[in-house]
């Protein structure tokens, strides 16, 4: 006995011809799907772009990971070594008493123009000076505002001058330094110069009166018993700031951090992620339901044609496949159209003035990656198949006798 026809070429041919015959309706379904899916893809892109941008801004700004003690205190080398050894600390550099950090700089090319700047110690791996040339004993990095004020450029030579005593008995320590680079504005907001720790110690000890005006760096020898007035530390990750801040305060060390801002930004990140997940989840559910309902209605409308096919001898499986194939074609077309629309809208959104507002760098607000498109395609095809199976089971139950009766 011959088997009932379930031959794929015939079913594919019939379902596609039906789709083409009703191309206006099929197009409406495709546009309807795209209209629901495109905003979801854009939403995904926005979530991705904004959250990642926000996060990257915080991480990019080294000052958000900075931990600085508040008042001048006494910290020994052992304490600094312990701090540096913490796994959540990326960088530690000592600070000296703030009274002694002021120096005067003179541009030899323009004698008489002297400006004051704050001296800051730095060392290899300083997160404030990423991508800057190394600081050595006579090569320094100047802050952006200081460079602008003195009209400095890399390679220029300056005279560093530290003063002590009153007007009657003034002594000057003079030290020529070369500008190695200019720090980004985010590194230090005021007039400042990043110098080698030994140079800073030389200035410190001269100002305190421990060294004569003729002293050189040779007078700064290693001393394990040396005491510092403070430190500047940077945590590895943004989240670490909160813990380091808490731990130091528990040990009675007053610190200045952006712990609160970090905490609220991390909270915002979590809330936004949840909000986006909810919107995308609800939107996605609505999308799947609209997809399923549309396909189901389609089956009901074609009930008579389907029962005729059944009467003529198409198998139950063929009848299930008929709407499934149409659903997949409509779903795929809708998802592709939605992707095209979403990518176009994302391009437009990223050209809006608000795009530059989120970050120092011109970062895109809406970032749609291939994975989002693939995800949309996968969800759509899955949803289309799922709803088509429901619709198909209904189609499969259509009795051949229905084809005999005229509606």
């Amino acid at each position, binding site marked *: *006995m*011959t*088997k*009932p*026809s379930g*031959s794929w070429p*015939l079913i594919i041919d*019939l379902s596609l*011809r*039906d789709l*083409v*015959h*009703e191309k206006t309706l099929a197009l409406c379904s495709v546009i309807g799907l795209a209209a629901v899916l495109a905003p979801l893809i854009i939403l995904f892109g926005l979530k991705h772009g904004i959250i990642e941008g926000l996060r990257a801004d915080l991480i990019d700004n080294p000052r958000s990971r900075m931990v600085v003690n508040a008042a001048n205190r006494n910290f020994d080398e052992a304490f600094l070594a312990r701090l540096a050894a913490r796994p959540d600390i990326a960088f530690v550099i000592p600070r000296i008493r703030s009274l002694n950090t002021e120096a005067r700089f003179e541009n030899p090319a323009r004698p008489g123009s002297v400006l004051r700047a704050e001296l800051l110690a730095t060392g290899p791996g300083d997160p404030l000076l990423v991508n800057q040339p190394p600081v050595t004993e006579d090569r320094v990095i100047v802050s952006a505002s200081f460079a602008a004020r003195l009209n400095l450029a890399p390679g220029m030579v300056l005279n560093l001058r530290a003063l002590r005593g009153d007007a009657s008995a003034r002594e000057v320590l003079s030290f020529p330094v070369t500008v190695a680079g200019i720090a980004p504005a985010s590194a230090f907001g005021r007039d400042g110069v990043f110098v080698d720790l030994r140079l800073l110690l030389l200035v410190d000890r001269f100002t305190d009166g421990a060294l004569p005006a003729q002293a050189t760096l040779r007078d700064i020898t290693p001393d394990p018993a040396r005491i510092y007035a403070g430190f500047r530390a940077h945590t590895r990750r943004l989240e670490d700031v909160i813990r380091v801040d808490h731990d130091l305060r528990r040990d009675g060390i007053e610190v200045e951090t952006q712990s609160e801002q970090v905490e609220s930004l991390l909270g915002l990140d979590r809330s936004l992620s949840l909000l986006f997940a909810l919107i995308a989840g609800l939107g996605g559910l609505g999308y799947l339901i609209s997809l399923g309902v549309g396909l189901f209605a389609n089956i009901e409308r074609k009930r008579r*044609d389907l029962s*005729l*096919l*059944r*009467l*003529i*001898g*198409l*198998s*139950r499986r063929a009848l299930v496949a008929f709407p499934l194939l149409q659903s997949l074609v409509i779903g795929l077309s809708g998802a592709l159209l939605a992707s095209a629309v979403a990518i176009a809208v994302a391009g437009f959104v990223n050209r809006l003035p608000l795009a530059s507002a989120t970050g120092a760098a011109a970062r895109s607000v809406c970032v749609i990656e291939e994975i989002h498109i693939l995800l949309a395609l996968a969800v759509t095809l899955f949803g289309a198949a799922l709803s088509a199976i429901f619709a198909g089971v209904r189609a499969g139950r259509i*009795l*051949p*006798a229905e*084809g*005999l*009766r*005229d509606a």
Partner: protein
Amino acid sequence: MHQPQPTLLLRDVMVSHAVAGGGSGFELLIEHLALCRGEAVALVGPSGSGKSTLLDLLALARQPTKAGQFRLLTRSAEEIDLAALWLNRADDELTATRAAHFGYVLQQGGLLPFLSVRRNIALSQAVLGRPDPAHVEALAERLDIAELLDRMPGTLSVGQRQRVAIARALAHRPEILLADEPTASVHPALADLVLSLLIEQAREQDTALLLATHDPDRAARQGFEILPLVTEIGRGGGRSRLNRPAQADAP
């Protein structure tokens, strides 16, 4: 004289409509029905007499409640025990039998709107995987619809659609041709033509033809043998009986 074996044979087949709540139901009892190739029988009876039920049963679209004997004998002498297929709920085999051996002409043609006339006619061949374009052309020629082959059904008149439906019903050379009120929605003048084409083509293709109609006079005029369905109203509801042995056995 050679006694033809009936193509379709039913003995003691019953279909009953149970009515929920034990109200009056309906029962169709076929004591004996034999149908041979080349015969043209018109089933007549008022609405509710069971014409549709009988047609559904013969179209293998309704399960008999009880079937003593229900079988199909094909030209190639293959015997198909339809009663057993129903008993085993062999849906695939029933579908295959329907596809291979039955043709249907419906009230309004029952053409698929998304296929051209040619593809509609060839559909019954395509389902069987036995394309025969020459036969499609020949049928179209005989039914005077050769110029319409590449049109879509939506552009045809009701009469033209019925001719296409007749061509499709015969395209795969079925054993049995079932026609359900094929003239109900055509102009009376056209109705005679549709019936005459139906009977002429069924004879030409050596197919048994069973027609359900409200119009016994017209069917008789075109050469159909009239088979009335008589309904008795009893205690349990209505009951229609049918008894038509093969013509050779008739007293």
